[in-house]
């Protein structure tokens, strides 16, 4: 049962990723990205970490996608000008194919076993908070500084500095 849910969600995530990479209309590609992000959030929930799944949906399918779609819509033809050269396209596909073959072979030969049973509390927000405070208190504070710096940086960058 779990396996079928996983395959359905994984299929949707992969379709979304393909739409992002291959669809010619930037707007549709951006929305495909949102589909992939929501499906990934569902996968996080399947992996027993539900609040990160909801974070994923809110942060990516919500915040990041709204910004991206806003910029795509504010600009008329986002994808124009010359295409990527044939050499670069072929080299990219070749590189991606080699990477996939090698990595899938590694996973295949390692043959990882089934997941161990975990108790119901695993992935609860209490346990996660304990891990965060016990091991990652300083990085957590640093993350807030990074976000503050990014906020100020974004305002500074987006001002009319080019005229």
């Amino acid at each position, binding site marked *: 049962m779990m396996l079928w849910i996983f395959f359905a969600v994984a299929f949707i995530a992969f379709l979304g990723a393909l739409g992002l990479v291959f669809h010619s209309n930037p707007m549709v590609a951006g929305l495909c990205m949102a589909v992939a992000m929501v499906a990934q959030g569902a996968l996080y929930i399947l992996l027993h970490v539900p609040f990160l799944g909801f974070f*994923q949906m809110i942060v*990516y399918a919500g915040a990041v996608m709204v910004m991206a779609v806003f910029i795509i819509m504010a600009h008329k033809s986002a994808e124009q000008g010359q295409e990527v050269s044939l050499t670069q396209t072929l080299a*990219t596909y070749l590189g991606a194919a080699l990477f*996939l073959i090698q990595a899938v072979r590694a996973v295949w030969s390692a043959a990882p076993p089934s997941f161990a049973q975990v108790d119901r509390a695993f992935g609860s927000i209490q346990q996660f908070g304990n891990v965060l405070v016990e091991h990652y208190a300083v990085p957590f504070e640093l993350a807030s500084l990074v976000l503050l710096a990014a906020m100020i940086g974004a305002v500074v960058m987006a001002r009319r500095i080019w*005229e």
Partner: protein
Amino acid sequence: MMALGPYLILSLFLFAAGLIGVLTRRSAILVFLSAELMLNSANLLFLAFGRHYGDLQGAAFVFFVMAVSAAEAAVGMAIVVAFMKHAKTTNIDAANLMKW
């Protein structure tokens, strides 16, 4: 019962798709979103291994990756907007001011 393998394979495929997107799309926004896709595939890997070992530290890492990529999204979008005003296009081939 789920196993680790399918998650790893899905994550690899998403990473490869993001890689192709970064190297073949020309719109700066879509290149940026493809990079986000690669970040997310790594997140999936973190969570799958965390579930495998019954350890929540992977989830903590995913949390920080999300925080950093949200910051990166804000700054990246601001740069794209500034570049759009400057060059009147979002085609990243137009960003050749500092090309060697």
